[in-house]
């Protein structure tokens, strides 16, 4: 009997492997997605001059207001940022999301012109001209987006443009849950 079981072993291993493969295909996961070390930790330091003339500088206090905040790094020279921009506009207008926009390695006048042309969804807009804040935030490029809960903990980190699916599956539920 044990001998028989031995001969079944290859088949059992295959079944186990095939199960994982099927699961992986069904789950529709993206193997290229990179995990983030930022998730679950307090949001890094924020101390930036404002992008728009006359605004107050951006500080950490914005991230610990008790309300969930979306932090979005963008740049006027970045094409994927253009792609995700309408989603943020809609989030701000329809869902009343608090969105902090940070222009990364971008000339302020170019960033302002870009927002003037496309619409400005950012309640707060900062300028990270030399990219130092981006460094603190573990940025690998733009666009990247962080969801921060009311206590200042990073809950989600999107590398690359946010998609329609991200908005409906993650961002909206996140905003609702914390309100």
């Amino acid at each position, binding site marked *: 009997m044990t001998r028989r079981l031995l001969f079944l072993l290859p088949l059992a291993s295959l*079944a186990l492997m095939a199960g994982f493969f099927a699961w992986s295909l069904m789950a529709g996961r993206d193997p290229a997605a990179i995990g983030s070390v930022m998730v679950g930790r307090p949001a890094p330091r924020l101390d930036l001059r404002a992008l728009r003339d006359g605004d107050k500088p951006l500080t950490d206090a914005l991230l610990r207001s008790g309300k969930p905040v979306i932090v979005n790094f963008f740049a006027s020279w970045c094409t994927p940022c253009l792609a995700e921009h309408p989603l943020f506009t809609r989030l701000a207008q329809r869902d009343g999301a608090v969105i902090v926009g940070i222009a990364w390695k971008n000339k302020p006048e170019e960033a302002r012109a870009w927002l003037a042309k496309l619409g400005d969804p950012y309640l707060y807009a900062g300028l990270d001209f030399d990219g130092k804040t981006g460094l603190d935030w573990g940025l690998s490029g733009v666009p990247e987006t962080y969801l921060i809960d009311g206590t200042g903990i990073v809950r989600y980190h999107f590398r690359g443009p946010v998609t329609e699916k991200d908005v409906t599956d993650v961002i909206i539920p996140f905003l609702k849950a914390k309100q």
Partner: protein
Amino acid sequence: MIPELGHFALILALVVALVQGTLPLVGAAKGDDRLMALGSTAALTQALLVLIAFAALTQAYVTSDFSVVNVVANSHSAKPLVYKITGVWGNHEGSMLLWALILALFGAAVAIFGANLPDTLRARVLAIQALIGTGFLAFLLFTSNPFERLSPAPPDGNGLNPLLQDPGLAFHPPLLYLGYVGFSVTYAFAIAALLEGRVDPAWARWVRPWTLAAWCFLTLGIALGSWWAYYILGWGGFWFWDPVENASLMPWLAGTALLHSAIVVEKRDALKSWTVLLAILAFSLSLLGTFLVRSGVLTSVHAFAQDPARGLYILGFLIAVTGGGLALYAWRAPKLSPGGLFQPVSREGALILNNLLLCTLAVTVLLGTLYPLFLDLLTGNKVSVGPPFFNATFVPLCAPLFAALCVGPFLGWKRAELWPALTQLRLAFFVSVAAAVVAAAVVDSRSTLAAVAFGFGVWLIVGSIVEFASRIRLARVPWPESLRRLRATPRAAIGMTIAHGALGFVVLGSVATGAWHLEVIETLKPGEKTHIAGYDVTLQRVENVQGPNYVAERATLAVTTGGRPFTTLQPERRLFVVQRRQIAETAIQTNLLRDLYATLGEGDPNTGWVIRLYLNPLAPWIWLGAALCALGGFVSLSDRRLRIGAPTRFRARTAGPGMTGGTRGPRSA
């Protein structure tokens, strides 16, 4: 019109494959000669039809017929002719068609060369081949039709992936597929044997040439892929433990194990169910590789366009082929006659050790490749398993394998003495220890491990030479006698010596390149100079050049040594206009003992260009060794005793243990 003909031929091929996959099986079960004979005819017809389909697609590529979606997506009128042809398999649909073609050609080869197989065995092997073919043809027709039309036809195509516009990669897939698909024949033989209920030395002798052929092609395919990665990726490395590389390594390891275990079946009529299992696994691992590359469950630099629907189809196919095979194995294999006990110190004992180690290596690679996937699914953690894992697991496992490799051939069958074998190898032992000591003392004292590995490489080469010298009793008997023995040595033995020694060259090349390479990265402006290992390298100029379908920056590096001109290196960075993709074209100067390797990075006239220089000692030996390894396989394949048509002792053999099911129908001698 011609694409439609190709499409139609493919549909006909599917129908023929269905007939070939069913009726001969029925014929073999019922002992009906006419139904069994159908297998050969159908195999030849199917091969012809798939060949027509392949020719039709090639024609569409050569004439740049942009009314075919596949041509639009993967070709461009400005492409050189050779890449128009290789573009046929440089994409998902075309490469699957190539796969189906090779499968059908192997089926036809079994029909042609298998005239001396027993009728039932041949009918069953051909039917299993055809069932596999049915899966691939249906996959092509239902999910990946290469002949799909597009209207209106665009004026030009999108071009082939620039990485593939390279002689190394252009011919890498056909070789690799010859290997992968070649294992389908061993799979078919294994399934047929399980259906027949008999595995005997004659069976092993029939399987071995097919295994050997597949193994040789796979060896060449892997070597070509690794060579390509070496000179095109521009990182100076030659093996990256990338999932796609691992996918080709696993069937190679299983195939190598099969090659050795089949000898035990042939000579000792033992290790049968294990050999059958290996035959099933070698092909299953080939399919697994295909699944991993094309389904998108793992990422890789080589990833094809990925589509979950295709992934599910290939998974279903993988489960049907592997699961079907393994289920049949679980049911029938326990009834195969066990092979009796072995002495641990004997030729067969050594071959079993070889099998254990090779299979452990294959499992290690499998776990390393799939672990990130399992972990991600179970915990959501993303990890990447790379060289550190494989260096810590795969490499140490090679040590006992290599150590035993030279001893095995000195051991006799059934029962042998270890000590006499070892004394014959004392020269090889002392030479390799000396080589390791010299390597540690002179070349690099930091890495003891590399020095030890280097010693193993020398051990493999010297050990193989010593084994051959002792076979022809060189210097022990007068040389005319040695010459006579040399002429009488079977090709299979010569092939073994070549392949074993060649492995030593691969090891030496890998160790030296991996552990002792030198690397210099500098930003140079024209006129500036750097140096590497006694060579002074001056960047003379960087110019723009126009290729057929790319523009490139080409650096001219003047290399001098001791003040005298040595060579000129011209690495390029090509921008393929249609795809907006940059590819580095390395410049390599080799003297067969080391490669001087240069790549051109980003830069501009003001800040200078990033130039990377590598000195890779013994790097060419990696690929020369691999080619020599395959040559050993081909030499062995040319052995008269392995010819498929050679007279067999089949009739004289007693039948296997009683089993229900499959008839042991009449067989021709």
